[in-house]
C-alpha cells in the first residue's frame, strides 16, 4: 500500500552535523560500495572512465558558501540522502505500491520487483533523494542500510548505515528520532537541529545540525595555545645558551 502509516513504532534516521563535516565524500563512497553489492539492483555507472561519467548515488555531498556574521566567507559541506519523511510525498504518488514507509521503523523503501520505473516519486521528492537507475530501470534510494542495521551476521558496531560507520569526523549519527531519550534526539535538542525545506510539509525524520558560530568554536582553540612557556632540561639549557650568544 502506498498510503502512509499514521504513526510508526520508531523513526529511524540520521542526524548530520554541518559543523563537523569536512566534505571528504567518504560517506558517498561507502554508500555506493555497500549498496551496489548488497540489497537489490546494483548502482550502475554510465561511461565511468569516459569523458562524461554519470551514475546512481544514494548520497551526495554538496558544498555551499555563505557570509559569516563577521563578514568572512564560510564553507559548509552538505551531505544529502533520503530524509525518510513522516509525510513522504514520494510514497503516496507511487501507482504500483512499490514505494512504502515501514510501520515498524519508518524507513522509506522501494520494493524493486513492483517498480515500473515511472519516475513520479523522484519528481515528488523535494530533496532529490531518489535516482532512477539507468541500467535497471527502477528507482533507487537510501534504505538506511536495512541489510546492515538488522543483520546479526555483522559485528554489533557495524550494524549502522555504511555512511555513519565510515565517517572519519563523526559528522553522521544514526538512531531513533521518535525516542526523546535517544542520543540523536538529545543531539538535535542541544544543537538546535533543523528540518530541510520545512515549508514543503514533508516532516523529514533526518535532522541537520547548524554550523557553530565563531564564539562557539572553543573545542580546538585551547589546543592551539602554547603548551609551555619555556623548555627545561638539556634542550632548555641549549636554548638559553644559544640565546645568550
Amino acid at each position: 500500500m502506498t498510503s502512509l502509516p499514521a504513526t510508526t513504532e520508531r523513526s529511524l534516521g540520521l542526524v548530520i552535523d554541518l559543523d563537523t563535516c569536512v566534505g571528504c565524500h567518504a560517506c558517498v563512497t561507502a554508500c555506493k560500495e555497500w549498496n551496489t553489492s548488497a540489497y537489490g539492483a546494483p548502482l550502475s555507472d554510465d561511461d565511468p572512465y569516459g569523458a562524461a561519467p554519470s551514475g546512481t548515488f544514494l548520497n551526495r555531498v554538496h558544498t555551499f558558501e555563505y557570509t559569516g556574521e563577521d563578514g568572512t566567507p564560510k564553507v559548509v559541506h552538505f551531505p544529502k540522502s533520503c530524509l525518510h519523511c513522516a509525510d513522504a510525498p514520494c510514497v503516496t504518488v507511487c501507482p504500483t505500491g512499490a514505494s512504502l514507509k515501514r510501520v515498524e521503523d519508518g524507513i522509506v523503501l522501494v520494493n524493486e520487483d513492483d517498480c515500473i520505473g515511472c519516475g513520479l516519486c523522484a519528481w515528488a521528492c523535494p530533496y532529490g533523494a531518489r535516482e532512477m537507475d539507468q541500467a535497471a530501470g527502477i528507482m533507487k534510494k537510501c534504505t538506511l542500510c536495512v541489510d546492515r542495521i538488522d543483520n546479526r551476521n555483522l559485528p554489533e558496531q557495524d550494524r549502522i548505515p555504511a555512511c555513519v560507520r565510515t565517517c572519519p569526523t563523526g559528522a553522521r549519527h544514526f538512531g531513533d528520532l521518535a525516542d526523546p531519550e535517544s542520543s540523536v534526539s538529545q543531539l538535535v535538542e542541544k544543537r538546535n537541529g533543523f528540518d530541510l525545506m520545512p515549508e514543503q510539509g514533508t516532516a523529514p525524520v533526518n535532522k541537520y545540525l547548524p554550523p557553530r558560530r565563531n564564539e562557539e568554536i572553543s573545542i580546538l582553540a585551547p589546543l592551539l595555545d602554547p603548551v609551555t612557556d619555556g623548555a627545561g632540561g638539556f634542550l632548555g639549557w641549549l636554548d638559553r645558551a644559544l640565546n645568550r650568544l
Partner: protein
Amino acid sequence: MHPAPSIIIFTVLSGLGFGMMTWLGLGATATEGPEALTLCAIAIALVAAGLLSSLFHLGHPERFLKALTQWRSSWLSREGIASIATIATFMLFSGLWGVFSIRSAALGTLTALLALTTVFCTAMIYAQMKTVPRWHSPLTPVTFLLAAVAGGAVPFAKHLAPWLLLLLGTGLVIDALRGHLAFQRSGTTLASATGLAPGRRPRLLAPPHTGSNYLMREMVYTAGRTNAPLLFGAGLVLAVLIPALVLLSLQTGPAVAIFATVSHTAGVIVLRYLFFAQAEHVVGLYYGRHGEKI
C-alpha cells in the same frame, strides 16, 4: 523539468482523443453508420497511441498492470483505471451506434464523464507536485480540461468550438502569468533548503560531482527557455487563433475540420513542451539554480 517526447505526445494525443470521446458521447454529430464508426475509431486511435507512448516512458513497461492497484492514494493509478474504463465504455457506445444505429444517451453521457475524469487525473499528476511550484495550482487541471474540451470540439467544427478555443487561450495566458512568479511565491529558497539564513547569502560553491546525473537531466533541465515567449506566442497562434478564425470564417467541411485540428494539435504540442521545459523543480536549488551565482 525534462520535456520527454513520450509524455508530451501522450498528454496531447490522449487529451484530444478523450475530448473527442466527450463530444461524441454528448452527440456532437448526427452521422450514422461507417462515418460514425470512423470518427469513433479516430478517437480510440488517438487515446491508444497516447497510452502506448506513455508506456515507453517507463523503465519496466511489462509491469504496467501493477499501476492499477494504488488508486486510493496515487493520481497516476487513478488515471490508468479511468482511461481503461473510458475506452471500454466508449467502445460499447460506438459499437451500438455505428453497427446497430442505437445511440445510447446514458452510455454517451457516462463516456463524457469518464473521459473528463481521466483528463482531470492526468492533470492532477502534475498539479499535486508541491516540488514544482509552476504546476502546483488549480489552473493546471483547468487548462488541461479546457484543452481537451476545446480540442475535442474542433474536429466537429461546432459553433461552440471557436469560443472554447478562445477560453482555452485566455486560461493559458492567465496560467502563464501566474506560473512566471510561482517559484518565488512558493517560499522554497536555498536558505530553507540548507538552513543557512538568507541574510548570510548562501550560494553553491561546488556541486557534488563534476558530471551530470539523473536528477539534473530530469529535474534541473534548463534548455529551451530563452525562446519561451516566442514559442508561447507561436503555440497560442497555432492552437487557438488559427483554428478559431478558420472555424469562424470558413464554411464547415471535412477539409476545414482537418486543417483546424492539425493546427490546433501542433500548437498544443508546442505549449505542452513549454509546460515541461518551463517548470522548475525545487531540487535545482541544491544545484545552484534560482540562487546567487558566484
